[in-house]
């Protein structure tokens, strides 16, 4: 039985949740003695009114698209992959190894190579939790959390003891060769007369992220594998009855999820930092959870939610620069979005459902 029209489920509930999160965030800003309206204006001005602001917004959004898609693919199989952060870290390691140790003649080939490296390393990091869930029944949430910490320790070790150039103090790898540097939006869209996206890190990976959105849409809604993944997520016993092997789906879904998380490394490590640094994922793996929940696990929703969070990230940086509001405000907003769209979903849904049921009764009666 449909309790609610589809548009209400897809559009209205996320919007109301977002408004609730925004109200609480505004109250938080008020409580620390700043004006929410002014803060919002500063965020819009810094993130959207200049092309360099857009350059940052789109750069962050690219990261979130990858991690958001990763979380949503796993969600479709009813798996909660909290390990995006670790998978992204390993993906960055894959990018770094490919860029450091293979002499690429041209960036386009390097991009291809690093994308494969990122996806392979990210998928590999998701494989062990996936295998343990599929074959031994170990809860994937716990194992992926543990793998985040193990990834952080591993990256820390590699950067301090192995990849750090001799004599350098900072735990970071050497800079990648110039031939591997990806075209930035500045070099792609600036003309003789005007410089666009000046100094911003947005790069060609954004388009790869868009392609990834289309790929995930085709995979989930237009392929046999996607049908199997969704069946598994809808009802494991039903899927099993239809001859779909649960452990196979768990492993494949997690491999795709890990590969997508890992791809974030192409944007952050090859596109922006141009070397491997400590904590290169910058928490984007976790934001993927908020993005997937807000985007209702649909690639288009993920894209919109990623743009929103890209805006929040860049706007938050502007706030931290011009006001006394620290960057951590964004973490609060992110927490509220996860809380309202994820955990308190029913708080918004139940009243709406009864509202629509009442409307329908009135129409019929």
């Amino acid at each position: 039985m449909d309790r609610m029209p589809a548009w209400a489920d897809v559009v209205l509930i996320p919007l109301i949740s977002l408004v609730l999160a925004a109200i609480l965030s505004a109250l938080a800003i008020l409580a620390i003695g700043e004006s929410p309206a002014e803060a919002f204006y500063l965020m819009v001005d810094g993130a959207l009114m200049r092309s360099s602001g857009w350059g940052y917004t789109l750069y962050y959004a690219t990261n979130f698209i990858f991690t958001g898609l990763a979380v949503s693919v796993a969600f479709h199989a009813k798996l909660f992959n909290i390990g995006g952060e670790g998978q992204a870290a390993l993906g960055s390691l894959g990018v770094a190894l490919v860029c450091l140790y293979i002499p690429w003649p041209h960036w386009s080939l390097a991009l291809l190579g690093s994308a494969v490296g990122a996806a392979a390393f990210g998928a590999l990091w998701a494989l062990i939790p996936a295998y343990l869930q599929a074959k031994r029944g170990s809860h994937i949430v716990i194992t992926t959390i543990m793998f985040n910490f193990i990834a952080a320790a591993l990256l820390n070790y590699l950067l301090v003891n192995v990849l750090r150039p001799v004599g350098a103090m900072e735990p970071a790898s050497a800079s990648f060769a110039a031939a591997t540097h990806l075209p930035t939006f500045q070099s792609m869209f600036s003309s003789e007369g005007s410089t666009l996206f000046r100094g911003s890190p947005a790069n060609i990976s954004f388009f790869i992220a868009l392609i990834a959105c289309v790929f995930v849409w085709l995979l989930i809604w237009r392929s046999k594998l996607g049908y199997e993944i969704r069946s598994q997520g809808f009802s494991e016993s039903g899927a099993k009855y239809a001859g779909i092997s649960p452990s196979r789906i768990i492993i494949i879904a997690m491999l795709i999820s890990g590969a997508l998380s890992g791809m974030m490394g192409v944007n952050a490590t090859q596109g922006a930092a141009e070397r491997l640094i400590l904590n290169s994922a910058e928490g984007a793996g976790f934001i993927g959870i908020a993005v997937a929940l807000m985007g209702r696990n649909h690639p288009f929703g993920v894209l919109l939610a990623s743009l929103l969070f890209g805006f929040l990230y860049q706007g938050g940086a502007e706030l931290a620069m011009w006001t006394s509001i620290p960057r951590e405000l964004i973490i609060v907003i992110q927490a509220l979005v996860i809380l309202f769209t994820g955990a308190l979903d029913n708080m918004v849904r139940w009243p709406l459902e009864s509202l629509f049921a009442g409307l329908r009764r009135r129409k019929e009666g």
Partner: protein
Amino acid sequence: MDLNTLLQVLDSTVRLGTPLLLMCLAGLFSERAGIVDIGLEGKALVAAFFSASIAYTTGLVWIGLLAGIAASMVLSMIHGIASITFRGNQLISGVALNFLASGLTVLIAQDWFGQGGRTPSLGDVRFPALTLPFADALRSVPVIGPIYYDLISGHSILVYVAFLCVPLTWWVLYRTRFGLRLRAVGENPAAVDTAGISVVRLRFSAIVIAGVLCGLAGSYLATALQAGFVKEMTAGRGYIALAALIFAKWRPWYALSATMLFGLLQAVALRYQNIDLGGVVIPVQFMNALPYILTIVILAGFVGAANPPRAGGDPYVKER
């Protein structure tokens, strides 16, 4: 390694194991009642911040402790409302609470103290180290004296409270009617409901207990182990406690040994950095990751199966 070094390592094991123990017991109560709690970290973090800041402003560490417990309780209640009342996803709620804590503490700390997300140093407004009776007199007795003086005596009161919580938890879970019902509600809530006992009330009381214990853990971090709050000061301890809970297979005495084992790992990593074992150097990062690796091994079922409470994570829907 002489006795003195050994005692120092064990002493710091107790100090570092205590917050893990408190959080682990918090998780134990919650998960035994069928509510999965990833938010241990966040609850301890808000408790750490509010205990330190209220202790600093009032100059009274006990008031700080109460404030810490209250703050942790607020997060517990949000978790309860989300996962019990609105039958939301408990994992997602826990994740959200951890982020909420990590953002809010810095936001408020910056607003109140303006020191980049930390509280001013507490100085003397902390839980003092207690000297147990006869510790000074016995100190000169060989072996027993130093063990009693250095290892058993000389901790803050919260350490002794944490250790007393272990037999208390055991007694409550296995020797009281409340404990029996609590365990039943985590295994088969429908049966409890049929017996005419409120599932919702039982689960909420478990969550309240978890809130108090996480409050103690956070306050211990900020007002006993260290002298003030710093950004992200729980540093993943909530997740290690979660790992310890699995390691302990959701049982109180095993929780004590698991948390002390993980405390020992932290103490060794803190003291020795890279360990040289006859040519093979164990890097400090490996020691830091060891609790997580051990948990994966346990979860993989290579050392006996770890079966969580059966109804864990499922919201209870009363039959209609």
